[in-house]
């Protein structure tokens, strides 16, 4: 199939539909709305359910119900809407049914704004909903990657009976880029054994997240954790750029990773031996490769469009063995490649330290410019 110029949100919607999406439930919110709008036209066109729910609470619980039938279902939203979905996400995790969520992140907290941001890292990667559960989190840095990861999201959700989130920021959702859409997959015909379908007479199935017996609930918790270990073993994905001889390593995901790549290239032109690690799975986090890089690199620079949420995961792996610095923009402000380049140069010029917290140093530097 040929490439076409297409908006991120529309591309993700069309990719999901082609991947065999059987039902979509959502609620309008910028900068995600084109995704819902595209499916509001396309799903009925091919005879599949589309429901604009009364709220994100409604949407995620419609997904929960439909997911209990084992069919391919999804919802999409942006930060404030995803906050509202946390209840349903926890229930879906607790019932061990597969579902896909696309979060097109915007500036926050609160109503914030509709500009691109990465402030949902913590609520998506480290829970948000109650109880011990993990979502598999995929973070695209281009429209093409968003398309590919959306298709993958359904396969992974079903393989592990686990929630999969595609975490993209508003710029991936809003940007137009050439991308190749996936071929049409036929709808699944097999019903998983655990799925409800309407069968009485002793054969009936029950799907629930309640378990009043603590030891039995703990067994369920252990099952979830073991499954997560398996996901950690099998599903880590990342992309490395110029890492072979890198003395300095930038770590960034999504749009921050993409902007960092421009900065890394510019720095390479100046002869600075710097590379980029761009995690594609934020959960499971690419710990092993980061650990290897810690052995080789002189220092790290973490770049994010938040106040350093992934930074904490990087620090957990580096464990003070090498200096880590941080550069972030927040509130919907997107960093320029030049700004990241300046940070890389600062890394090279030093002085560097493994003491203190990189966020404190960043804030101190920031107050000189922003006040």
């Amino acid at each position, binding site marked *: 199939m040929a490439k076409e110029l297409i908006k991120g949100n529309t591309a993700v919607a069309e990719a999901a539909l082609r991947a065999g999406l059987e039902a979509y439930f959502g609620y309008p919110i910028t900068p995600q709305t084109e995704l819902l709008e595209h499916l509001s036209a396309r799903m009925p066109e091919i005879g599949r359910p589309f*429901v604009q729910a*009364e709220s994100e609470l409604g949407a995620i619980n419609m997904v929960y119900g*439909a997911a209990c039938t084992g069919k391919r279902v999804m919802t999409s939203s942006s930060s404030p809407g995803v906050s509202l979905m946390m209840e349903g996400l926890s229930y879906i995790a607790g019932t061990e049914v597969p579902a896909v969520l696309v979060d097109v992140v915007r500036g926050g907290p609160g109503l914030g704004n509709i500009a691109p941001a990465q402030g949902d890292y913590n609520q998506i990667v480290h829970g948000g909903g109650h109880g011990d559960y993990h979502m598999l989190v995929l973070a695209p840095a281009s429209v093409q990657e968003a398309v590919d990861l959306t298709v993958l999201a359904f396969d992974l959700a079903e393989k592990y009976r686990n929630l999969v989130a595609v975490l993209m920021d508003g710029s991936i959702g809003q940007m137009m880029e050439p991308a190749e859409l996936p071929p049409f997959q036929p709808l699944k015909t097999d019903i998983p054994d655990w799925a409800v379908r309407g069968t*009485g007479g002793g054969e*009936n199935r029950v799907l629930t997240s*309640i378990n009043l017996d603590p030891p039995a609930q703990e067994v369920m918790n252990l099952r979830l954790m073991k499954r997560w270990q398996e996901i950690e073993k099998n599903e880590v994905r990342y992309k490395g750029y110029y890492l072979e001889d890198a003395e300095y390593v930038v770590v960034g995901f999504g749009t921050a990773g993409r902007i960092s790549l421009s900065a890394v290239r510019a720095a390479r032109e100046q002869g600075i031996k710097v590379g980029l690690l761009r995690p594609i799975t934020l959960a499971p986090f690419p710990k092993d490769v980061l650990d290897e890089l810690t052995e080789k690199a002189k220092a790290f620079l973490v770049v994010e469009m938040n106040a350093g949420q992934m930074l904490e995961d990087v620090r957990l792996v580096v464990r003070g063995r090498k200096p880590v610095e941080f550069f972030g923009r927040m509130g919907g402000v997107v960093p320029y490649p030049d700004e990241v380049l300046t940070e890389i140069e600062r890394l090279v010029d030093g002085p560097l330290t493994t003491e203190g917290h990189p966020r404190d140093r960043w804030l101190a530097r920031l107050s000189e410019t922003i006040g």
Partner: protein
Amino acid sequence: MVMTDVPAKIVYERPEALDPRVTHYCPGCTHGVAHRLVAEVLDEMGETGNTIGVASVGCSVFAYNYFNIDFVEAAHGRAPAMATGIKRVYPDRTVFTYQGDGDLASIGMGEIVGAASRGEGITVIFINNANYGMTGGQMAPTTLPGQKTSSSPTGRDTKRQGYPIQTAEMLSTLEGSSYIVRRSLHSSREIRRAKQAIRTAFEVQKHGLGFSLVELLSTCPTNWGMSAAGARDWLEERMLPFYPLGDYKISPAVAELKI
């Protein structure tokens, strides 16, 4: 022993849709009666093997243990949304929710109004027992003015705590709802009427006529602090005047329905 040649005839049987286990409901609680009516209706319609139920959060949270049909268990108030998800992917299945008054008329008001206004083809069995049974008898959106509960210990004061919600009346104003009635479970006569209404509600769904809801006035002797008989009397004397039984919405298509 005197032998007669009158042949034995079964006049009472446990519905196939109802599991033979003992329920956890308190003596005199009408949740069990409501379960039985639903099971009888599904059996009589031949729908037992074609139904998916959605249990809610409340005393009936384990309803799925008592039915021999596929079930899912929703978050508090969200059963109509979950049922929507199921019904949309399985339009030929019978899908119903079973919800309490706290669940449906307080935390889940958005979901029930959404489902009704969309004309979602599901059936809702709504148990109004004027309190939050499961959590120990707190004030519900249905608690009567002056009624004492564990969170309105001196009686519901309408100045501070507002007025109860008349759910059937309210939902009947929505164009999307097709069949909205209120019945009661306090006497055998009313129980028979309740069963007819439940049958109609499921027939509405089976015939693709849209959203149906049966509100059932119910007893909670434990939290009302009454005997089973006393609770039935209290329902009749106190609840009926505020929650009149009746048909609040019968859409033209439903009126044509012959059962």
